[in-house]
């Protein structure tokens, strides 16, 4: 407990010190942490434009949905020195860290076959959550008030809530994530799967408790119970699926309509006057329904801004011919979505791993990733530590990422600042970074496949041995009969 608290304090202290010494202005120029989507400068510009009665989405600076504008409508030019805002962003990181700790602890508790060393197991949740909390990338993204931190918080929170089988809240939080960044909407299926699995486990645990209390003697009663249980389960899962998807869409649409109402009623004041008799007339007579979608979701999906980042798309779309642009963007985004279907089918009984894989694939194939996504990706993938044992080339990956991350900043500098190198330097290094992430994810999937096949084979072996024995017995009995 003391260790955990001291680590948390260390993280907070690190952030406070870096804030105090004004490292924000240094990191605010770094392309690894500041993308067009996550930049705080752009948020302030939007607030400023709004105060002048102009659309906050003009000038293609700001790309977050309107609720964030409403949340941060009070920021001003000196906000980087504002401790209130700093504390908000420290709190976000802190909550993320705690959630990671809780999630890993819970999953470790649930895993039946404990292959891990108990000592290692005890220290693992603290280690991973402190890796997230204390690493320089997360601290830097906290320094520059990276708006991507919100999405990370939502995803972790919704995983945590799903682990506790709270369908309503987890879908709500997930819809917040989807509202912010669209692509997390793909997580809805694994989250519902996780909810269903957790609920059934809780159900089982309860029954087991009941079992221990009341002893059942008659076998018939047992069988009846079993039948009832399966029936109940089937109807329940269907209900859960329906409820989950419906709730998710409901929350999402609610948020969109809310922001549309906010956005429509003049940019300068965010009051929704429902008492106004012409309220609905105003709402429907305005032809510009959901114009902010063009600047938020369409911007994210169409990748209109080609500012360099550590992702895969920016240079590809800079160097493609304009004629093929739409085709290429559509194909890549389409395959990103379609590609997750075989995953979901294969790992449907391992929803937590499914969540991890889909989250990391979303993060890797983001249009505007930041370096803060990298520790997040690591922590998400390490949520099931037994997969780590099966991965290959660990040393290679560690060295590779050290080199690549170290080179990102210099290669950006020699192109943009000094003008001594050209764009290919940055392209090469960002490509290898994304490629490394892809390879890590592939390794994790491979090791997951090994674990799963091992488990399944064991089961089958058991079954087949029983079958073998029973058939032999039958045969021998038949022979005896003869």
């Amino acid at each position, binding site marked *: 407990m003391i260790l955990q608290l001291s680590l948390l304090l260390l993280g907070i202290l690190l952030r406070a010190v870096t804030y105090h010494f004004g490292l924000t202005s240094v990191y605010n*120029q770094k392309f690894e942490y500041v993308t067009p989507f996550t930049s705080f*400068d752009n948020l302030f*510009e939007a607030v*400023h*434009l709004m105060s*002048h009665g*102009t*659309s906050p989405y*003009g*000038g*293609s*600076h700001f790309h977050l949905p309107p609720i964030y504008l409403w949340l941060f409508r009070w920021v001003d*030019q000196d906000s980087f020195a504002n401790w209130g805002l700093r504390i908000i962003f420290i709190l976000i990181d802190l909550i993320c860290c705690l959630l990671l700790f809780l999630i890993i602890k819970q999953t470790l508790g649930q895993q039946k076959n404990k292959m891990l060393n108990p000592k290692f197991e005890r220290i693992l949740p603290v280690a991973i959550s402190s890796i997230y909390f204390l690493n320089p990338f997360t601290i830097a993204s906290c320094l520059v008030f990276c708006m991507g931190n919100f999405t990370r918080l939502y995803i972790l929170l919704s995983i945590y809530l799903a682990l506790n089988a709270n369908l309503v809240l987890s879908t709500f939080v997930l819809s917040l994530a989807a509202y912010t960044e669209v692509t997390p909407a793909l997580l809805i299926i694994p989250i519902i799967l996780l909810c269903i699995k957790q609920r059934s486990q809780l159900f089982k645990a309860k029954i087991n408790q009941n079992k221990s209390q009341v002893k059942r003697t008659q076998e018939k009663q047992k069988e009846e119970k079993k039948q009832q249980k399966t029936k109940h389960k089937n109807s329940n899962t269907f209900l859960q699926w329906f409820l989950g998807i419906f709730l998710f869409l409901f929350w999402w649409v609610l948020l969109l309509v809310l922001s549309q109402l906010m956005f429509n009623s003049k940019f300068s004041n965010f009051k929704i006057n429902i008492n106004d008799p012409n309220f609905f007339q105003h709402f429907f007579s305005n032809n510009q329904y959901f114009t902010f979608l063009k600047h938020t979701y369409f911007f994210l999906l169409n990748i*209109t*801004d*080609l*500012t*360099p980042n550590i992702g*895969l798309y*920016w240079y*590809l*779309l*800079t*160097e*493609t*011919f*304009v004629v093929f642009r739409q085709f290429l963007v559509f194909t*890549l985004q389409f*395959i990103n979505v379609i*590609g997750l279907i*075989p*995953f979901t089918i*294969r790992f449907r009984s391992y929803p937590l791993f499914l969540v991890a894989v889909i989250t990391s694939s979303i993060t*890797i*194939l983001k249009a505007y990733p930041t370096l803060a996504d990298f520790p997040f990706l690591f922590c998400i993938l390490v949520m099931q530590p037994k997969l780590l044992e099966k991965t290959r080339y660990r040393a290679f990956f560690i060295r590779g990422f050290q080199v690549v991350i170290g080179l990102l900043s210099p290669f950006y500098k020699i*192109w*943009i*600042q000094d*003008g001594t190198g050209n*764009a*290919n330097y940055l392209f090469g290094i960002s*490509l290898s970074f*994304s*490629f490394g992430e*892809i390879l890590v994810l*592939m390794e994790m*999937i*491979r090791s997951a*496949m*090994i*674990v*799963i*096949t*091992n488990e399944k*084979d064991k089961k*089958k*072996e058991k079954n*087949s*041995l029983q*079958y073998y024995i029973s058939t032999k017995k039958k045969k021998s009995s038949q022979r005896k009969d003869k």
Partner: protein
Amino acid sequence: MKHTPLTILFFLFFSLYFGCLAQSQDKYTEALTIKKLNKNKLLFKFDFNTISKNPNYQNYFLFPKTFGNLVKENSLEYLRFSLTQGMYHLKYGEIGRYSPPGGELIATFETKEDLESKFRTVSRKISGIFGTSQKFSDLTISAQPFYTEFNSLESTSQRTHYSSLPREPVCTENLTPWLKLLPCRSKAGLASLLNPIKLYDLFYHSMSVEVTRSQENSLSFHQQLLLVVELKEFKFSQIFGTPLIGPICPFSSQTKIQIEGFSDYSSFTPTPEEIGNNQVGFILKENLNKKDFNLHYSPKEKTNNNGYNHNNIGNDNSNNGNDNNNNFNNNGINDENISKNQSIKLNRFLKESGKIRGGVITQITNLEKNDLHLTLYDSLPWFMRVYFHTLTIKSNFENKEIEITDLNLESEQGNESNLFANQASLLRIQTSQDHGRPSIFELALVLKPGETFQISVDYLKGFLNFEEHPFDGNRGFDIAPAIVSMHGKKQNLKKRIYYTDSLLLMLPTPDFTMPYNVMTITTTAFLIWYGSFLNNLTGRAGLKLKKKSKAKWIIKPDKF
């Protein structure tokens, strides 16, 4: 109906009558003004004016038919088109209306509706007539200045569309159609001096066409050619290649050469005379054809003969940008870069570190002895993503920052007394759109005598697709100058328009040579992602590590 001889006669009579009427109502004048400017510069200003009263848009005599049709079809009230080579600085002296480098097109229409589509048709026709590029209609550079008044018409604010192409090249191909609009072409009159080979070697060269339809239903067509030469003495045959050989244009009701700003008129041969209105010069008569008119000027006290200075177009720009940066805190009036009657001084430059962020700084100095009321129109292309929250105005008086009051005057127009109530007020903001309209801001400023305002705004550069870069991508992008217009409170201060320097913006360039490599390599990364992903899901990766199971013969090969 049969055409009786009587009706034919009748028609003949009437057509003759209207023909004569048209002839009598078109008035054409030619004028050449020679003016001495600062820094050994000489201005040659050619004005060709055609005024047509009560035009019926069917019979054209001197007024060019193409422009008559253009005005009629697009319900134009005002049109100005100019093509310029070189940059004119106010330190050479004020020469009235001048043009920024490249092309400029201004059009005022009768109504506000469909401004953009109308402007597009007009710009296409104009570029058809003068053989320029059609980029005037490009929405990324064209916009509406609300508070800059380009003409003397009333309340033109929301009916005017403006477009400026700082990179438009100018050559003889543009001059030939311009000369063809003149009644005598370049065969006779002052236009016969305009030899394209010589003209484009000069320091500054700007040709313009201006059509105004006034409320008294008269059309005026004004063709102007501004030439700035860097010379101490000159001869017509030296500058233009030929002396003025007669005859003068027979349609011209007045052809005059006017001389301004010289201290010694006696050093001209032939010596100029008084031509009325306190003007000195020559009124050319038709009997010119007997002897060539070769105006010669050689000042008596010769220092050293600079002669004819080739290749100095734009040389002056480089000096100017540097030496103006540092004199913000000095009192601008004592600057040697200022002419005598200059009322305003303008500087504009970029501040950049790296290729992503930067700022545009515009400096305006009041050199008059009374307060100046100015509006500034600044339009920056979309790839300079302006941060409007960084818009600041600094004054050199006590080096303080001036508060900008925000006036959203778009609803209430034309209240000019309101505009200049504060020292600096923001009149309008237009935010840019990606690959679309530019970002615009308009300011109203009140400058005390001797005061310098430094207006700065920061921007973030947008990145372009490699096809959107021009062919010489590493040269940079020209940014059109800001427009400062003077709103005179008193009658003696006319509404005047000044242009700041145009800027050259460097954008980070991608590698133009190998798009295919990038495409193939990146898509390979994607392919590996999908490929190994599907491979992992379908193949049985785990079986290799596992020991052989005893009951393998019972398990079916693959049930996944």
